[in-house]
């Protein structure tokens, strides 16, 4: 594979590099250092108002803005795809305000900002994943009060979470959580891995890449440092399982990637394709080259 040097767009000089002022970036970096030092712990930070709406990736964007350097190559995905509108919008934002190179190819990227997916292509040690997080608190839907949940984390008191999972098993026969599936990080903090499908959870465990999570509206950030143990919560007699499909991708034929379901006509005919567009394209081009 020949490595192409991506084209760099021109930077809009009206803004500081990557939009945020240096003071703010320093504040976020200090928060990130703390987050890396305490894996899975939610660090409050002075989240700023971004020119994108809350809920649309303002937390992830602030993390990205704080860590971007001049020579970084940025990839932005939403639902695994580079061409979803919000991914396009965020990629454009950084191309304009930081003038950095962007890519759709997972192996070429140094920073990958994502919403709801982890790429299928294995990550390497020179990469940083930035996750957009809507609700950082894994206990929020069990206990709405922040004062209470912070105390529960401090006391390592996760009984309610296990009770919730147990109730699922009692009611449905299995754990009925399919995305934002809670994980235990470094045997200490229960963490929300952001709304990625549980299919992606195993990719967090002992990953060589640094994982940063930013929640803008809730003003929290957290991290999973490289090679950290990340375990999806389960029970011995009900082990954690990931989704499987009977179908394969209609484009590349992959049987091991996460599939999106498409409805093709009024009769409800289904088709399944890879959610990770870059992975799908790579596999397709390899097959063409092989023919």
């Amino acid at each position, binding site marked *: 594979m020949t490595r192409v040097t991506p084209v760099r767009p021109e930077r809009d000089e009206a803004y500081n590099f990557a939009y945020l002022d240096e003071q703010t970036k320093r504040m976020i970096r200090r928060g990130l250092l703390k987050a890396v030092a305490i894996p899975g712990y939610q660090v409050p930070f002075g989240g700023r108002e971004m020119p994108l*709406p*809350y809920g649309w990736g303002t937390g992830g964007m602030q993390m990205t803005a704080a860590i971007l350097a001049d020579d970084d190559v940025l990839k932005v995905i*939403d639902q695994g795809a580079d061409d979803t*509108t919000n991914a*396009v919008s965020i990629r454009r934002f950084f191309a304009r305000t930081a003038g950095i190179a962007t890519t759709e190819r997972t192996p070429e990227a140094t920073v990958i900002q994502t919403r*709801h997916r982890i790429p299928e292509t294995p990550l390497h040690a020179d990469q940083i994943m930035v996750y957009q997080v809507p609700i950082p608190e894994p206990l929020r839907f069990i206990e*709405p009060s922040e004062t209470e949940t912070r105390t529960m984390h401090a006391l390592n008191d996760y009984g309610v979470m296990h009770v919730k999972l147990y109730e699922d098993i009692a009611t449905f026969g299995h754990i009925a959580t399919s995305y934002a599936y809670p994980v235990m990080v470094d045997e200490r903090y229960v963490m929300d891995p952001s709304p990625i*499908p549980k299919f992606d959870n195993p990719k967090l465990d002992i990953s060589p890449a640094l994982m940063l999570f930013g929640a803008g*509206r809730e*003003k929290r950030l957290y991290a999973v440092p490289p090679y950290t143990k990340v375990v999806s919560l389960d029970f011995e007699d009900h082990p954690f399982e990931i989704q499987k499909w009977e179908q394969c991708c209609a484009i590349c034929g992959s049987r091991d990637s996460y599939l999106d379901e498409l409805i093709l006509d009024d009769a409800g005919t289904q088709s399944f394709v890879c959610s990770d567009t870059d992975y799908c394209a790579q596999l397709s081009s390899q097959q063409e080259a092989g023919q």
Partner: protein
Amino acid sequence: MYVAVKGGEQAIDNAHRLLAKKRRGDTSIAELAVEQIRQQLPLAVARVMTEGSLYDEQLAALAIKQAAGDLVEAIFLLRAYRTTLPRFTASLPIDTSVMQLNRRLSATFKDVPGGQLLGPTFDYTHRLLDFALLAEGEYPGPQVEEGASLEPCPRVLGLLAKEGLIKNETGNDLAVPDITRDPLEFPSNRAQRLQALARGDEGFLLALGYSTQRGYGRNHPFAGEIRIGEVEVWIEPQELGFPIAIGSIEVTECEMVNQFVGSGKELPQFTRGYGLAFGHAERKAMGMALVDRSLRAEEFNEEIESPAQQEEFVLSHCDNVEAAGFVSHLKLPHYVDFQSELELVRKMRKPVAQEKNQ
């Protein structure tokens, strides 16, 4: 097939152009000038400045124009601009007792030193559509009495405080926190709460304030005093060592007199709720004052049982930029998560379906 569910750069560009066209409307009608909005929609400008936390009439008017009249969107625009501004100093506290009053009323006393001043208000207008406004023309101003002047208007609640009938609010010398720089953490203090409420959505605070009047956290409010007018803003730069006035702003201030509290040790006293907003924004200031008071439940040992008394509930949900953003993000694609749920629901239905077939 694949492209149908994905957007693209072209779609975004076209959407922005369509929006610009919708905003402009019929081009045979003269374009609305920012100065016209500033002059002729002052109450909209006031709301945008208040909830946008930035006193700049021109920029607020610009935001209203850019947002095509969507005030929550305009507030967002102003906020996003505000974040980029450097902070060079904090002003001294404004002194509203020496305000140049345009309007002042107290519902607790028939007459107060300085008198009541109705000023420009919708109160007592009959809400009948004024078809004369459909036509263009000049509108006569009020009759002005030459030589009329305002007497000093001391704060109404200050008069109660002199008698010890209302709980004194004592300041502290602690640095004022800034919730736009440091994240709000619970339990919060009153300074943080008032900041959050000042930025909070008018409709949300109005509804919560209303809920306290209907019995959800009842605390018997009276409009002790509402005053609207211009106040000077003073700063004291360190290198000067003395304060200087940098201009004046219009504000609306509301002090509610509420249910008295007393205990074996303390004599019964009234308590107060406080509201302050930029410009002429009476409904906002009143809603804020009601909610400020209900959030002081813990301070006055009242039972906390209603939404308006719960600080986490109120403060986490009063910001309309946050709320609008998170609600609108539901428009973003969620098909990865939905696929997970589909898979799960199908899996859960399988055993039941198999049982039926047997």
